């Protein structure tokens, strides 16, 4: 069961610079929420606060509440938080020296899974969910770097979901991919949303319109508007949202 994320008065700094200026958001479970906004608006910082990666940057700090369901994410161990909240990055980043199989099995082994059969099953399940199994099932021992960019990104998604997180964060997951691979990743997001709460940061407005149930527009570290995607792209309530999505600024 995926769980909703509740964010209250979230503020984040890089050194003295306030990057997020008090964000309040309720991200629904089993839905895709897209975060859009111009460069530097704080959207990547926002999702990096959700899995406590922001605080790993020297001089960075976070205040406010983030709850996953009823669990206060800033009270527990950050490592546990990152297991519950998986992340996929802009550029596919498989472990270059590991095989396709081991890229996925590594996280499971670190989590204590030792049984070969169980590992095989979990790897296959993850690759199936990432719509990659059919393409790699006969070459699991080959290096992950032998895959195309689009396949590598789906491998990273498989790696993220292998440890059975509750939430999947995606930071520009398709911006380095060709259009066909992009559509495959988008279809995958659509399939995965039943199982996970998904938050996707994207510069591609059409992508947000295609994949997201809800869309949030960030500007200068503030949440300007958060509504269902259809409303945002057909009749947004705030003029700044309208100007941004119609390409009049940003």
């Amino acid at each position, binding site marked *: 069961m995926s769980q909703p994320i509740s964010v209250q008065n979230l503020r984040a700094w890089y050194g003295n610079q306030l990057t997020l200026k008090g964000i309040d958001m309720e991200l629904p479970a089993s839905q895709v929420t897209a975060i859009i906004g111009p460069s530097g608006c704080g959207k990547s910082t926002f999702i990096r606060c959700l899995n406590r990666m922001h605080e790993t940057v020297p001089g960075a700090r976070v205040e406010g509440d983030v709850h996953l369901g009823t669990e206060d994410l800033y009270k527990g161990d950050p490592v546990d938080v990152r297991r519950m909240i998986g992340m996929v990055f802009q550029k596919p980043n498989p472990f270059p020296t590991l095989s396709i199989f081991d890229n996925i099995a590594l996280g499971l082994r670190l989590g204590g899974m030792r049984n070969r059969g169980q590992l095989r099953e979990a790897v296959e399940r993850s690759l199936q969910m990432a719509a990659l199994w059919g393409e790699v099932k006969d070459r699991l021992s080959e290096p992950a770097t032998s895959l195309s960019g689009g396949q590598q990104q789906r491998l990273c998604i498989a790696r993220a979901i292998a440890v059975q997180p509750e939430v999947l964060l995606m930071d520009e997951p398709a911006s380095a991919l060709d259009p066909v691979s992009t559509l495959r990743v988008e279809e995958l997001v659509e399939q995965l949303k039943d199982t996970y709460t998904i938050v996707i940061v994207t510069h591609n407005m059409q992508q947000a319109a295609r994949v997201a149930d809800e869309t949030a527009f960030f500007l200068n570290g503030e949440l300007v508007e958060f509504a269902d995607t259809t409303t945002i792209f057909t009749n947004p309530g705030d003029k700044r949202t*309208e100007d941004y999505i119609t390409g*009049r600024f940003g």
Partner: protein
Amino acid sequence: MQQRQNFDISLRELKLQLLHMGGDVQEGIRKAIEALKTGDMNLANQVVHGDIYINQQEHEIENLCIRLIATQQPVATDLRKIVAGMQIATDLERMGDNAVDIAKTVSRLQGQTLIKPLVDIPRMATIVDTMISNALNAYVENSLDLAENLATQDDEVDHLYRQMMEELFAIGKDRPNAANQAMSLAFIGRYLERIGDHATNVGEGVIFIITGKHPDLN
């Protein structure tokens, strides 16, 4: 910094094409009514033959809108302007067809003495002409007031139409020989009433562009 300059130029081009088409449609309706008043068959023929240019303009506007949707990925107000632009072009084209219907009816009346003085039809024609002007101005000026007032003007046209129908029905009953012409005049009234409805639809399109909501002015 001005952004999406080419897209904005294309949206202005869409506006100009709709205004041009609207002007031609108004001209067609005026000529058809003038032909009825004067019995000038040449004018009536001009309306019938001129319809092809109105249809062409509708296709050009549709093509422009399709190209903008395909190449510019419009959203929000831009998208509404384009979608409503296509609908407005369709309504204008239908008004052009109604002008042709009037002109053809006038041709069928050729040589006949009118069974009654023309009062309500010219009145209706004047109101629908103003309605089309107001609808186009509402579109150009993004005016909610002008668009919403079309509902009131449409009611006036509907009222005149009903009044005219009652009169023509009475004439047809009392003078069976006049029934055919009464029916033709009733059709002309019906065409004008439809033109009023289409002008009101244009107003609805304008309200949709401005508010994003679908009103019902009819």
